[in-house]
């Protein structure tokens, strides 16, 4: 009799523990042992099966109240950078491209022996070109809307290029590609869809080679150094 009661008590305690763990069983973050215990328990416990179903339902219901989030991070990011730039203490003694820390220097991206801009555009072309993504800030030719102005670089002299693409791209799409490659959109698109971008030509590559490599990329309609 005592043995039955002990067994029952242990089972009840395990049942309570499983009930507490179910949410993390559902999000697949339990350890192997915990997960095995839950799976075994679920095979025989109707109450826990019901709780699991209720939690799935609750998750679906709560996700139906997705809070509205602004898809375009850029305006918020600019606000934050303005805050940072207005507080010298937040930038003191540091360069945005500092390599003073050897550990950091080691992890910085290499400038591979293809042109930076070519890699930028390759990255860009790998992105899904969303036709529904309407170009932003279209202004008449020659009157660029400044999008970013972070142009400092210790890697070499920054060059400004005017780039046009066969398909219209949104500034956001282009910017997302540029972030990964440490280039900048200076302005654009203008009325003809041209962007003014700032890139650093890798050492050992002539300006002409650089432009040729850019122009040879499918999707790039024209590339020229800005006057």
């Amino acid at each position, binding site marked *: 009799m005592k043995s039955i009661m002990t067994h029952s008590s242990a089972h009840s305690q395990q049942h309570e523990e499983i009930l507490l763990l179910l949410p993390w069983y559902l999000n697949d*973050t339990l350890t192997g042992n915990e997960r095995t215990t839950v799976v075994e328990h679920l095979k025989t416990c109707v109450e826990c099966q019901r709780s699991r179903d209720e939690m799935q339902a609750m998750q679906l219901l*709560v996700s139906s109240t997705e*809070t509205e989030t602004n898809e375009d991070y850029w305006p918020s990011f600019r606000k934050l950078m303005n805050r940072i730039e207005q507080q010298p203490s937040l930038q003191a003694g540091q360069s945005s491209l500092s390599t003073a820390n050897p550990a950091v220097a080691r992890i910085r991206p290499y400038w591979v022996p293809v042109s930076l801009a070519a890699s930028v555009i390759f990255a860009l072309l790998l992105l899904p070109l969303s036709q529904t993504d309407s170009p932003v800030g279209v202004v008449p030719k020659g009157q660029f809307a400044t999008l970013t102005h972070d142009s400092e670089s210790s890697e070499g002299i920054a060059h400004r290029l005017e780039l046009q693409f066969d398909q219209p791209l949104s500034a956001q799409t282009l910017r997302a590609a540029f972030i990964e490659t440490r280039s900048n959109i200076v302005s654009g698109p203008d009325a003809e869809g041209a962007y003014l971008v700032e890139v650093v030509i890798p050492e050992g590559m002539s300006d002409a080679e650089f432009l040729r490599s850019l122009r040879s990329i499918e999707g790039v309609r024209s590339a020229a150094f800005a006057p």
Partner: protein
Amino acid sequence: MIRNKAGTAADRGQRDQQEVILLERVATRDKHAFEQLYVRYHPQLSRYLGRLMRRPDMVEEAVNDTMLVVWEKAGTFEGRSKVSTWITGIAYLKGIKMLDKLRLMPEQNALDIDEQAGLEESTNLISRLGLEEWIASGLDSISADQRSVIELTYFSGFSYQEIAEVMDCPVNTVKTRMFHARRRLQRLLPALSDSRLAVAADLNDGVEVEQ
């Protein structure tokens, strides 16, 4: 098993390695790295803080307050937790602090839904308010800490240990907050049980469910 938005453990590990590198660059005031980190975290922090605070007008400020701390303190990150845990922990503190300042902690809010309301009453309420508003009212009625646990579990895919780090509390507190949040929502939203089968059918339509 529900596949959460955070992906598999391997995905999360790879993502964390990339973020440690980004954070090291941010520590040297690398604005490009900071922008990459911002792009990654803007959507999830907006959603998390939106759910935690239930104040859409304050979300942008809270996100930027969080990321400002990341910019300032990147050099102090010691790698004892994941980058996502560290950043979310900052966001949690910012969100709670802002709510506290405004005396908007949900515990002080009046309940919008009668906890004793029966199924019929709830059904009428859903018809009147619409499902989304009805659920939103339910979420308003649990504490910010409970909403935080729900959000981080169901939508960010955090383990209970990671949530304990984010919220700086014992793991048992995380488990009991989740337990009480579930129980309270079930009481507040009794039609949930009734609609369970229909919703579960929808769920099984879109995600893999382990039997």
